């Protein structure tokens, strides 16, 4: 059991690139995904998975890292990027009926997708998506799969059938153990994600990439989408344009002015 091969699922989300302005579109206030990328926070999850499987001899030794995404056709980009970085195979859940799904409906479909992969040792996710930012998918998914969950891990190790994770608070650190199979979400402090190298880019082309519809997952349209969601976004407004701001000129007392400003804004 010590160093036996692992079967890991990593959730990867296709999110709007934070480099560009973000917009909401349509009556349901869904996010405009025209300039989108693999969520940076999910790169930490993928790295955590790859570090664990690399240490166990990688794909050659039977380790599997499945990059799983749920989203429209374009979301395949997130899976492909994961394959280039080093995931073994990809799974893309894509169905028109999924549009508008909230976290509850999304976690339902994700759980069903993970079940198609057979016995899984670990599900690793990022700490949040950089778009919806609910951080609730990991918990819902763990509940739906009946797995112990460890969230916001800034370090993790697997030894035999146990995962050990460190959670860092502001003034404390705690170590949590769970038996496998388990679900772990990792923070952006967990590791230093690798990027694709050229061999990875070329190798990705030959890796297995499966696309599944709701029917493939045994779900119906009413289970997901706006119908299957517990929450709806009733109103949304774009952030008002930024104003000019205050420029402090330093004539020896800039520090004091700065403190006064922050205090006036109740920021300190």
């Amino acid at each position, binding site marked *: 059991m010590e160093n036996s091969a692992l079967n890991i699922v990593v959730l990867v989300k296709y999110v709007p690139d934070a480099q560009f302005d973000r917009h909401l579109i349509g009556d349901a206030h869904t996010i405009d995904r025209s300039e989108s990328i693999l969520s940076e926070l999910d790169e930490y999850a993928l790295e955590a998975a790859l570090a664990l499987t690399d240490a166990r001899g990688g794909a050659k030794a039977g380790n599997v890292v499945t990059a799983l995404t749920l989203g429209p056709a374009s979301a395949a980009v997130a899976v492909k990027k994961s394959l280039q970085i080093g995931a073994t195979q990809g799974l893309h859940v894509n169905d028109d009926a999924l549009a508008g799904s909230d976290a509850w409906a999304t976690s339902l479909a994700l759980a069903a997708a993970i079940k198609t992969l057979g016995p899984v040792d670990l599900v690793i996710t990022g700490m949040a998506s950089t778009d919806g930012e609910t951080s609730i998918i990991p918990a819902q998914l763990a509940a739906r799969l009946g797995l112990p969950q460890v969230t916001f891990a800034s370090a993790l190790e697997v030894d035999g059938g146990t995962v050990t994770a460190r959670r860092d608070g502001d003034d404390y650190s705690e170590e949590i153990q769970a038996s496998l199979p388990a679900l772990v979400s990792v923070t952006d402090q967990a590791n230093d994600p690798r990027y694709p190298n050229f061999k990875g880019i070329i190798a*990705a*082309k030959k890796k297995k990439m499966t696309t599944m519809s709701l029917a493939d997952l045994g779900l119906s349209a009413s289970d997901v989408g706006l119908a299957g969601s517990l929450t709806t976004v009733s109103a949304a407004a774009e952030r008002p344009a930024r104003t000019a701001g205050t420029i402090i000129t330093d004539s020896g007392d800039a520090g004091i002015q700065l403190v006064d400003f922050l205090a006036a804004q109740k920021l300190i």
Partner: protein
Amino acid sequence: MKHVETEEQQALRSAVRDIVGRYGVEYANKHARAGESMTELWQEMGEAGFLGVAVPEEYGGGGCGIYELAAVLEEASTLGASLIMMVVSPAICGTVIAKYGTDEQKQRWLPGFADGSIVMAFGITEPDAGSNTHNISTVARRDGDDWVLNGRKVYVTGVNNADYVLIVARTVDERSGRLRPAMFVLPRETPGFEYREVDMDIIESEKQYLLFLDDVRLPAEALVGGADAPLEALFAGLNPERIMTAAIAVGTGRYAINIAAEYVKERSVWGQPIGAHQGISHPLAKSHIEVELSRLMMLHAAALYDAGEDKAAGEAANMAKYSAAEASINALDTAIQSLGGNGLSKEYGLAQMLGLARIGRVAPVSREMVLNFVAQHSLGLPKSY
């Protein structure tokens, strides 16, 4: 001709942007101003396989071609990091050795080109043979099994950080005849070989050197492609050189236009962004068109070259080099003008690139020599020299 890049080519570009983006333009500018090679970036790009995309797979490379190599350089330059040694080391030297080297030479050097751990400079220009390469007088004389080289080279880029210099010489009995290049891999620390920095007035991370070869003795294995190598052996390296020079120029043009476009959207002088004035927007739009057109010619030349269409590739590579150099010089000038005083400040990093952009009009082959080539070979006009 295909106009849509494959997923791998797009992923390659994006991965290069990721790496270079993490170093940032500040890194590139700092090294350019200090005249220091971007060694860390080079090594990281090399380890990721991006400098070796064109090296055959059996030697640890990416098994692709000059198209992909040019894409790597174009993306790096677009972010302000013109890795000029990519023009020389993988594109010229790596290609010549891959195409004309013996099995032993390939075993010995190509793995180093695949991961960027070998840097090889390229010396063809001489004090009396710049545009006129027929005048090359660096001579290689046989002595037993060895070769003994004598001559001078000038403007050779990056010798200080190179492990080797690929020297273009001619064999002694062909001194007066048609150019019969003989190429030698010269380890930098060889007795009789010295190099001295040429005092250039360019803000750039690589420097140029004057080379002195005085009775430099090299073993038989240093000769690449044989003593009577066809002229094609040399052009196997020179066409990629032109394509890669075009890639730097395209990247530099894009870099300049990107900075200017951002700036003129924000800067207001008369109550609206200056980008609203057509006196500003039209020159930028025109520069953008010119850069993109030259980019298309560069990609076309690279595709032809990789397809083994050497003659057509030669013509296209010359045209791409010409138009990309002109477009980037113009784009930089336009960008500087668009920023007003800021265009000439260090903060915006545009003016410092004038020298770099200007290289493309002179090297590796001057604007005039490209026009001569096109007049003679494309249009069939008589030669004046």
